[in-house]
């Protein structure tokens, strides 16, 4: 199971980084999303996937190794929540950039165009 998850995580990282290097804002956002999902899967794989029982201990005499480690899942849960919030913000920001620049091509959104009005795309 771990090798499969490792490959999935690797593919997600590669796709995410590739999309982030593209010119369109939408691809940047999707890339960020894939990247954060990739790191979630990486945490799951790195901590080890086991067939152990849930860590709800009723009989204290059982050995600790029999139970699954709940920490990676709580880490992933936290990371998902944070990632969701941040991604939602990035989406709104990208939308506003796209509306004010009239394009979602990074090259058309010049950094030095304070005076330029939204109707006139920056030549740079």
């Amino acid at each position, binding site marked *: 199971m771990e090798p499969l998850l490792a490959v999935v995580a690797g593919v997600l990282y590669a796709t*995410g980084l590739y999309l*982030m290097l593209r010119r369109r*804002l939408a691809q*940047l956002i999707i890339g*960020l999303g894939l*990247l*954060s999902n*990739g*790191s979630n899967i*990486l*945490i799951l*794989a*790195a*901590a*080890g996937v086991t067939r152990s029982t849930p860590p709800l201990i009723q009989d204290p005499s059982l050995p600790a190794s029999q139970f699954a*480690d709940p*920490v*990676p899942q709580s*880490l992933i849960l*936290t*990371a998902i929540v*944070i990632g969701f*919030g*941040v991604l939602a*913000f*990035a989406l709104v*920001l*990208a939308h*506003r*950039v796209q509306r*004010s*620049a009239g394009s979602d091509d990074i090259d058309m*959104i*010049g*950094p*030095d*165009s*304070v005076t*330029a009005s*939204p109707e006139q795309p920056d030549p740079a």
Partner: protein
Amino acid sequence: MLLTLPILLPLATAIALHLLPERRTLLRVVAFAGALMILGAAAAILVRVASQGIQVLQVGSWPAPYGISLVADLFSALLVVMVGIIGVAVTASSFAGVDPRREAFGYHSLIHIVLMGVSGAFLTGDIFNMYVWFEVMLIGSFVLMSLHRTRAQLHAALTYVGLNLLASAFLLTAIGLLYGQAGTLNFADLARAWPERRTPGLDAALSMLFLTAFGIKAGLFPLFFWLPASYHTPPAAVGALLAGLLTKVGVYAMVRVFTLLFPDPAASVYTALLAMSAVTMGIGVIGALAQHDLRRVLSFNLVGHIGFTTVGLALWTPASLAGSILYVLHHMLVISTLFLVSGLFLRQRRTTDLRMLGGLYRTQPFVACLAMVPLFSLAGVPPLSGFVAKLAVVGPMLRQQHYALAAIALTVSLLTVLSMARVWEEAFWKRATDHASEPVHRRRLGGAILAPVAFLVILTVGFTVAAGPVFGLATRAAEQLLDRDGYVRAVLGEGSARAAR
């Protein structure tokens, strides 16, 4: 209980600011009072840490490696005091007027959320919790940066958001791999487990991942491009907040993680860090000399001087780390002051483009003298705080016979003098341009906008006057950072630190 105050106070203030009726003066007073309370709590923590050693709080009374610990050693405590100081200056500067649109969109509470995130990152003793505080502070700063609608500001915010999210992904990856290797996230527990979990290959990969993640946040050489591309657009007070605090959180995290988790000075990561720091110093000042906008000049200088703060970690001796700590403190103070000074220009002339400024010495000699202190302190002209900090950074280099490095540092300082002298000459000394003689641009600067600058300038001078005690504190903080046993004992209890050697 004391350790939670720098986190709870800004949280409570931020919530209160949302609930209060929207009356400008009321909001400003509450925000300012909140910042004063943070400063008070931070000072109390510093006094206690200085007299009684490392302070630890196990949140929710969960014992150490299982729950989240809050830990304040001298380095953390000093930085939290700086958070308080910069918080006070930034909230005070809002009395001079804030863009009403920003104020209506929760400007004050966002500042407190950033302060909360930064204090949390400085105080936490758990690496995943540190990631969470990073995100808290980032989301606050994202919103602060993008509250405006001009294209340049939106574009800058987008660059800033994209690169910082990338850094967060790298950090999360490193944390995941570290957990897989060590099975714990508590700094002290990780430090204790270091000899057993040591696998050279994975260690190298992990340390490089951490270096990349924190390097982006701190603005080190190949990873700094987002910073000058974004820090020149927000209003001066926001610039002061972000420039003073956020990059230093990256430096702090680097120092904390590397001293505890990778205590092998011969590791390749330190060679990389040394090279990156040296190039960062050079690139920053050269970039600054090529710029015409004051805030871009400052952003590049901010990057360049980050190199001074990380070089001490790379050299890995108590003296060099003490130099780094001193430099971080000095730089936080001075760069925030300078961003607030750029706010004076914005207020009076509506621009920070040096070519459009000029003649300010004639109209306002007091302001010119006030601005001179941080400008030349950044450059390291004696006897200002920059000189003390640079001495503490360059001294250990010479003693360790890193002459080339010392030569780079000193050349960079000289070029910074040039860059800062040019700023002063262009902004204050040269004859006013036609643009400046328009009546609109002849407004006088009132006390409300000068007070925060004066407050920080007085502290900068105080830094020089109290150089001895401050240097003593920095030296003790550096010794504490290198005493991993002491940290482990303080967090996990006596008898637990045997394996940490």
